[in-house]
């Protein structure tokens, strides 16, 4: 560590004002604060500056994502193995071999996502003379984790560029965006290249090119099966909770996502109100659907909605994005509750969009400022009344 510090201090003068590399000072700044806790203090007035800066809190989220990523990698290997059998795949079916197979498939996605996204971030930071923002550390991880494994890499790169430029930089960069950038990328792909983002083939590696599979294997996700009212072929609830089912890279395992949620909650990085109210909203709406129950999807036990598809992943990692969620405490309850309700509503009543979570969160991102506005207004009204009395 001392060695690193010395190297940094040695080159630092070049990047300061007047130095020959001062143009790139934001790049240097980015690396320095990435490696060491910054020693900056505020210039005037009294401020409390937390040592947990943006970089550290973002990094916590990345750590929280790792269980889901690791399980996702294993599951990619597993689904591929289940679909094509040992002869075709050359895998022996052991956990290690499946995991290694999966991680080799996921790594290029991560590399492309980080390469393109951070490239654009560094570039815009130089142009605008901003500091490099670390918001992309999480986004870059989230984007590949919410995509089907066989998505072509150039599409991924394009979606990342779209999300970072149109979703974030035009609004002023990290912290100013209205929509969650990771979901913007996903929505872009979903509407641009639907044949790679939905259907029964895309969720298992190799199925698109070669749909001949072992008898009895279906690459359909549980949501697609439920939307087709094919309840009898749904995987069991325990499979859905463990996560050994077809799906996008990291959404399948409720347990792995739960570990991540625990990390976020213990460190205080993720907001429990949003997570809790979103789950409550989804469950309540599921119960309401059970009351109406005009078709097989509606009759599904309400808790199924929580463990199917991307509900948990959305609740833990997407809805809780501190930038795009509601900022007021009451607002967070309303925001989460409405996401949960809308998710189930879109899933059950609109079979064209099986992935209701993405659309529900994006919609509520748009409404979050409005919710905050009315919460603040209500607070003001209450105080005025109290003052008058």
């Amino acid at each position, binding site marked *: 560590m001392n060695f690193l510090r010395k190297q940094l201090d040695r080159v630092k003068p070049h990047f300061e004002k007047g130095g020959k590399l001062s143009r790139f000072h934001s790049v240097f700044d980015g690396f320095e604060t990435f490696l060491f806790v910054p020693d900056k203090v505020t210039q005037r007035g009294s401020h409390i500056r937390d040592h947990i800066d943006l970089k550290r809190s973002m990094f916590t989220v990345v750590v929280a994502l790792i269980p889901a990523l690791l399980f996702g990698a294993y599951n990619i290997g597993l689904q591929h193995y289940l679909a094509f059998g040992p002869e075709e795949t050359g895998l022996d079916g052991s956990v290690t071999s499946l995991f290694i197979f999966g991680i080799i498939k996921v790594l290029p996605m991560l590399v492309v996502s980080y390469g393109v996204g951070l490239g654009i971030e560094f570039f815009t930071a130089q142009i605008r003379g901003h500091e490099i923002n670390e918001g992309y550390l999480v986004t870059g991880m989230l984007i590949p984790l919410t995509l089907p494994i066989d998505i072509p890499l150039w599409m991924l790169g394009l979606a990342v560029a779209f999300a970072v430029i149109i979703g974030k930089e*035009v609004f002023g960069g990290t912290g100013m965006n209205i929509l969650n950038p990771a979901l913007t990328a996903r929505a872009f792909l979903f*509407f*641009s290249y639907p*044949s790679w983002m939905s259907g029964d083939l895309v969720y298992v590696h190799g199925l698109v090119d070669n749909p001949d599979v072992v008898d009895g294997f279906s690459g359909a996700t549980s949501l697609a099966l439920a939307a087709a009212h094919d309840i009898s072929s749904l995987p069991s609830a325990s499979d859905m909770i463990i996560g050994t089912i077809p799906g996008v890279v990291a959404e399948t395992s409720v347990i792995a996502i739960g570990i991540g949620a625990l990390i976020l909650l213990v460190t205080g990085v993720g907001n429990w109100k949003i997570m809790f109210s979103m789950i409550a909203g989804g469950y309540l709406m599921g119960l309401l659907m059970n009351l109406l129950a005009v078709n097989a999807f509606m009759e599904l036990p309400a808790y199924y909605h929580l463990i199917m598809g991307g509900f948990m992943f959305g609740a833990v990692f997407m809805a809780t994005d501190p930038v795009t969620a509601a900022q007021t405490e009451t607002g967070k309850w309303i925001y989460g509750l409405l996401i949960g309700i809308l998710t189930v509503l879109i899933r059950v009543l609109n079979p064209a969009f099986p992935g209701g979570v993405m659309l529900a969160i994006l919609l509520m991102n748009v409404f979050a400022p409005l919710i905050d506005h009315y919460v603040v207004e209500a607070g003001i009204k209450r105080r005025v009344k109290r003052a008058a009395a």
Partner: protein
Amino acid sequence: MNGRESDPLFSVKNMRLLKEPLGRSNPITVQVLGICSALAVTVKLEPSIVLALSVVVVMGVSNVLTSLIRNMVPGRIRIIVQLVIIASMVTLVDQFLKAFAYDVSRQLSVFVGLIITNCIIMGRLEAFALANKPWESLLDGVGNAAGYGLILVIVGFFRELLGSGTLFDYPVIEMTGLYSIGYENNGMMILPPMALITVGIIIWVQRSRDKSLIEEN
């Protein structure tokens, strides 16, 4: 006032009436008018061009007509008079398209008729033709319509090329062989939101080249 009356037909000032709406005072990218039709008809290049030309005709003629009768029309009923002029012109254009370009007219469907409600036309009649002579009004009308049409054509070009892989229904992308190496058309370009985003990008490019357009706030 006298100086203006003796202006030659193609004086610098008159030419500016024609050119400014193409850039610095473009109705779509600067005044943000007429967005609605810009989103609706620009899925393909051909209807974009046809609509652009229709608007040029409607706007040029209505501006001249309004300017000719500007001193006879009582101020109270001027809006209704303008509407009659625009509506007659639009009906003419609509009938013309139905007779000579039936396919395109079907693609444009209601949007030819909706030229009547295009706020750029009404805006120019009110703001310019009512207070200026016919020749200047013609230049202003044609200039503004061309500025509107220019954006329509740019948006239509990108949406057809990236969304359908064609230009004037000619398979451009297929000719380049991009499909065989895995390229695919972007389905979102066909949806209205991408038209809005494309217009947004044009506005962005224009403002980064001409800083004086950026509002202070």
